[in-house]
């Protein structure tokens, strides 16, 4: 990509686009600006060349901004996206963020708001996306935690990695607790620290939160880094499911790991680009079952796009004989069968963990 960032502006009103172009041309990074007056045209442009940022209107005929952005998030996950709208509606804001939009901007009404808008866009296109946490430029999670400590912060850091969310509590610059899934305290802190990428958000302090971590920040970070190094150095699983011999593939390793989860009765892992290739453990008729799982996930992904309901996270089925959880990650489709006594809530949490582990 050239040194100048590329920005694509999408609005159905050509006259608005022209003024919009003038505003965005004031960005210090002197971006190359492209415009589109319809969603399909914008998607075609994004397919033809690489962009840094898409700024879209919300209300447009035929394909509205949410529809465009839900397609864009799926097809171009690294692209920064912003909505600029005159619709001050919390539900649309929530849905935009649920889709994964970086910024939801109400159309500015004053010169100061325009300046703020320009600053935000400049910040957004300056952010790299790989190996860092979105929300602060080129910072690892350790950097972010150290910043919180150095600033003697009293706050809660919410960190999201895929579908998993964790929290770290700070009090006067000390890490006092962490939580992710069922984990609490130091083990949760280590788990969160193992995430390579994600989003973070600083929440208000919770003064009454009980302290569960008593180590110094440096000791905590050092031990977590050591644990992480050791975990990385450990060899992968040495046996494959279904008694397959030899070195397991990445997919069969994942199947083997999932098969060890409490309550799991069968596991299927298929790839969207090659539905015939199914890795499975303990599944009867894996091919038709895998086809059903892929078709079901695809069907509800399409429904989600049609409803603009955001990303399909996972799907749980309660059955007469056994329960099932489905999740899609990139081109992979996970179908996990559970014992009848494993409830929907537990299946949901397990599927979240499975997806998060596979992202890591």
């Amino acid at each position: 990509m050239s040194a100048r960032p590329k920005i694509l502006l999408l609005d159905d009103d050509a006259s608005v686009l022209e003024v919009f172009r003038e505003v965005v041309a004031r960005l210090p990074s002197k971006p190359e600006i492209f415009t589109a007056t319809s969603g399909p045209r914008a998607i075609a442009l994004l397919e033809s060349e690489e962009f840094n940022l898409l700024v879209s209107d919300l209300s447009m005929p035929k394909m509205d901004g949410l529809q465009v952005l839900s397609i864009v998030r799926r097809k171009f996950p690294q692209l920064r996206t912003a909505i600029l709208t005159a619709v001050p509606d919390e539900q649309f804001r929530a849905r935009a963020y649920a889709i994964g939009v970086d910024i939801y901007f109400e159309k500015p009404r004053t010169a100061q708001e325009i300046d703020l808008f320009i600053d935000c866009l400049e910040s957004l296109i300056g952010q790299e996306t790989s190996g860092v946490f979105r929300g602060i430029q080129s910072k690892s999670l350790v950097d972010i935690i150290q910043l919180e400590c150095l600033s003697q912060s009293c706050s809660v850091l919410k960190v999201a990695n895929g579908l998993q969310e964790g929290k770290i509590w700070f009090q006067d610059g000390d890490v006092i607790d962490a939580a992710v899934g069922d984990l609490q305290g130091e083990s949760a802190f280590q788990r969160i620290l193992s995430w390579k990428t994600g989003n973070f958000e600083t929440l208000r302090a919770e003064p009454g939160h009980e302290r569960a971590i008593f180590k110094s920040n440096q000791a905590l970070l050092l031990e977590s880094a050591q644990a992480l190094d050791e975990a990385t150095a450990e060899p992968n699983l040495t046996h494959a499911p279904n008694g397959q011999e030899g070195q397991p593939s990445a997919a069969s390793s994942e199947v083997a790991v999932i098969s060890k989860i409490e309550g799991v009765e069968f596991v299927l892992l298929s790839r969207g680009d090659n539905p015939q290739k199914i890795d499975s453990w303990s599944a009867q008729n894996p091919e038709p079952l895998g086809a059903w799982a892929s078709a079901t996930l695809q069907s509800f992904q399409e429904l989600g796009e049609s409803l603009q309901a955001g990303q399909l996270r996972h799907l749980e089925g309660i059955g007469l004989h056994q329960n099932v959880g489905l999740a899609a990650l990139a081109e992979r489709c996970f179908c996990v069968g559970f014992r009848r006594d494993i409830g929907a809530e537990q299946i949901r949490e397990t599927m979240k963990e499975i997806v998060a582990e596979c992202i890591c």
Partner: protein
Amino acid sequence: MLSFFSKTAHTALVRLANGCFTVDRDGRIVASTLPQSFPLKQVHEIARRVLSTFQAAQQQNLPLTELMVDYSALMLTAREMRGGAIVYLTTRPLSPTS
């Protein structure tokens, strides 16, 4: 320049809705508590996909009684009812602490 921040005409964005509806085995909507602003076309679309999922699961010897579809902004829960279904739609609020 500030004039561009207002538009004369907007197309209506469809709100997600909270509510439920029942659909019979033939895909007919029997009853609904969804707001009238929620397009009937989308209700039928949901019903069609839910019913076909229940039927396809049955064919795989995996008969399901309940289906929960978890989207970022919406939770869809469907209970199988003698070939038909009752479907609940629940929107998710934007909550910074969730």
